[in-house]
């Protein structure tokens, strides 16, 4: 460990704002960019399941 204490670690030698803001922003932006396609994939899988259920009952599909 390059720091003597947790306090020194969080203080980052006086550069706490710059270092932690960089990290926070990175986690936020990358989290957003990674989560988007995960959620869309789930949505598509739900749609696929719905379509398969409908395909199994063609009579219902024709009526709707």
């Amino acid at each position, binding site marked *: *460990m390059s720091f003597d204490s947790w306090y020194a670690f969080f203080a980052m030698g006086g*550069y706490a704002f710059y*270092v932690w803001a*960089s990290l926070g922003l990175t986690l936020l932006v990358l989290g957003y960019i990674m989560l988007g396609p995960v959620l869309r994939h789930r949505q*598509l899988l739900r749609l696929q399941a719905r379509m398969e259920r409908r395909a199994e009952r*063609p009579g219902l*599909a024709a009526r709707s």
Partner: protein
Amino acid sequence: MSQSASSSDKKTRSKRFKLPLLIYQLASPPLFYKLSGKALPWITGLALILFAVGLVWGLAFAPADYQQGDSFRIIYIHVPAAAFSMGAYVAMAVTGAIGLIWRIKLAALVSKNCAPIGAAFTFLALATGSLWGKPMWGTWWIWDARLTSELILLFLYLGYMALQEAIEDRETASKAAAVLALVGVVNIPIIHYSVEWWYTLHQGATLFKFDKPAIASEMLWPLLIMLAAFLALFISNVLMRTRNDVLAQQLEQQAMNQNRASLSGV
């Protein structure tokens, strides 16, 4: 007569440059969907592990810089983001060109999906650079060649994405966007060499040069791990988005067939 015609036909066909067969096979959407589905958890898991290890090592265990103190630790985010903001662009342009020349639809999709994460990396490179520049240079921003060309990269990504969205027809959109991506490639060497060609506050290359890297090995290792983490994250993200597009297209096709079947059934 007919024999000679067919043989000359064969000759011209063999003269035309073709991609290796493997690329065509992998570019078949169903096979791509299956294989990428198997690889994705591993690549994503690897990305997350590398990211965690690299960050903890870089932020807590690497020694402080003798000139810049602990502010230099921003390097562990800034350099990988900047490197792959350019890497993602090159990948976007190359796959765009493959889609354009050999009409491989999957390549066009991959090209399209390089843009969001490429733009995110570019934004992060600019933002973390700004957060690093303020304590070291005394300014958030300077209109020098390195910063300006990186900003242009962000605009190229945004323009590329806007163009993809603006054109309704998928094929036309990907062709137009590929041309834009290829023209914009000229910006990549400008970004890389800007710190040598023009006067700048930005420091010179640390890693990507022909000499030995100008960094101590205790600082270098976490940086290499973070570079690998960003690369794995990029691959994972592009694969996820491309798989979604393949699935969405398949469902669209399926829905059309179902509607036709139900209409003819009535």
